[in-house]
């Protein structure tokens, strides 16, 4: 009995310590983003300051093209989410519920692409996009991401769980194949689509190397790529950079606060691929 008590206490202490390690950097970032520049670069450094200001959030728009970054990230990540959720679900539906010649071969092909890290083929992809004149365009950022093997896989594993005779009765009612998909199937898999969309949104919002490669003008950069390039290891104006960092992570953190279930589900589902 006694040892279990000690274990309980020790585990609580460890977890609280871990909570602090996770929360502190965010707390510090938030506080710093409201500090005057001189309070950030003062020595010895302090967590809190005597005066706070909103200045950094005003200055950030002139020191960093942050609004352009934000707009680009929303268009890129949002565009990928909208197009890929449709294309992935269509393919997943066919793979899960329709018997057709070559189904296994096509599905194997999809699975094979899942294991190919982007880093391996980024150079030919760059050359290809260059030839297609798609570098530095929204289309160039969105097109390659409009379908993803893991998205198809995730949606397929949901479609197979739906009852068997669903589409038979719809066919008898005279619906065509596309209507069966859009009117019967899609409404049933809203949670799965939401999970996939959130996963896609998060991946693309956070992505660095991919947008770094496919864009080259400053006003086409995404938040992750733009901040990394402009700031990187050499921060020039701490206050605005802190504010910019807050702005870059806030949208997803807010979304996470309201839809934690889907974020977690996405992490688990992407972990289920065998």
């Amino acid at each position, binding site marked *: 009995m006694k040892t279990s008590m000690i274990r309980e206490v020790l585990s*609580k202490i460890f977890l609280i310590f871990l909570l602090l390690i*996770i929360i502190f*950097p965010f707390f*510090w970032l938030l506080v710093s983003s409201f500090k005057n520049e001189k309070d950030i670069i003062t020595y010895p450094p302090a967590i809190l300051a005597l005066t706070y200001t909103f200045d950094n959030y005003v200055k950030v728009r002139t020191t960093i093209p942050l609004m352009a970054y934000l707009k680009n990230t929303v268009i890129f990540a949002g565009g990928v989410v909208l197009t890929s959720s449709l294309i992935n679900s269509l393919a997943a539906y066919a793979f899960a519920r329709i018997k057709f010649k070559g189904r296994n071969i096509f599905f194997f092909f999809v699975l094979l692409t899942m294991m190919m890290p982007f880093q391996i083929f980024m150079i030919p992809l760059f*050359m290809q996009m260059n030839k297609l004149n798609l570098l530095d365009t929204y289309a160039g950022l969105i097109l390659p991401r409009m379908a993803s093997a893991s998205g198809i896989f995730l949606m397929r594993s949901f479609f197979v769980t739906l009852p068997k005779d669903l589409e038979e009765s719809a066919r008898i009612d005279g619906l065509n194949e596309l209507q069966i998909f859009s009117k019967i199937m899609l409404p049933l898999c809203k949670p799965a689509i939401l999970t996939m969309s959130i996963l896609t949104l998060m991946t693309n919002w956070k992505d660095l190397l991919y947008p770094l490669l496919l864009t080259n003008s400053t006003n086409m950069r995404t938040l992750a790529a733009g901040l990394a390039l402009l700031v990187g290891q050499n921060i020039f104006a701490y206050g605005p950079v802190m504010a910019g960092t807050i702005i870059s992570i806030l949208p997803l953190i807010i979304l996470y606060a309201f839809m934690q279930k889907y974020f977690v589900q996405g992490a688990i589902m992407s972990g289920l691929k065998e």
Partner: protein
Amino acid sequence: MSDKIKAIVRFWNKPQHAAYLFILPAILVLSIFTVIPLIGTFIIGFFNINIFFTNTSFAGVANFMRLIQDSRAINALGNTLYFTLLQTPVQVGVGLVVSVLISKSTIFNKFCRAVFFIPVVCSLTAIGIIWSVLLDGNIGIISYYLLRLGVQSPTFFRDPALAMPTVAVMTVWANFGVTMTILLAAIQGVSLSLYEAAEMDGASKMRQFFHITIPQIFPALGYCLLTNFIGSMQVFDQVYVTTGGGPNFKTETIVQYIYSRGFTSPFELGYASAISAVFFAIIAFLSLLLNVYMSRKEAGLS
């Protein structure tokens, strides 16, 4: 004419035909933007190609021969393996311990789960910026407190010996929420009756952990190890933001080297592709090895 259209519509409306239309967009996108570039990697590696497509010529195996003698490439491979060996075991270890500690669904544990996942939704760019200021030798608050505790001038990302371990620990901080979440789902799927039976036999918590939890969640554990391993080998973002490969190439990784070879002067895309192709073979080989090892372990456990 309209009969013809009707016939076409009827043909494609048969489920076994419509299926091809349904998978067509996905297959097209994956073929054009994944498979063709992937094949391209192996072909371009045999050419001298620069970013401006001037002086393109067949190079044969010259690029690959050059790679063997390229000390910067070998250094990058070493750094990548070093990062992987630091990051992967620690991340899976921390993820496992935490997931076991918070497996009961109490309010406190649910709070922990929610908080531990927060870094996962933030870009490594943002996280890199945060940590490089926190650990800055001059204005970093953590460096300052460590100095006060008696640690000699801790400069972390600027210290040749400490830079890579620091990047690895930061990566664990950023990503262990994913491992924790996956393992937590696996642990919650273990039948409670197994623990009850062990409890009846008087097995200690430690014994229960090693003899019930670990074997039961082994597939999930293996999955985490493998994906973490593959992900670590491709490390780029966090290094690019915090150290840029320095100090003195001590943290330059393979992907970063491929990137700088291809996209900074003299823009040798052919050589960079050759490195990519060899790198792909290395990852595939090591992943296979790890997979075989885990399967053997799993067979031994059951």
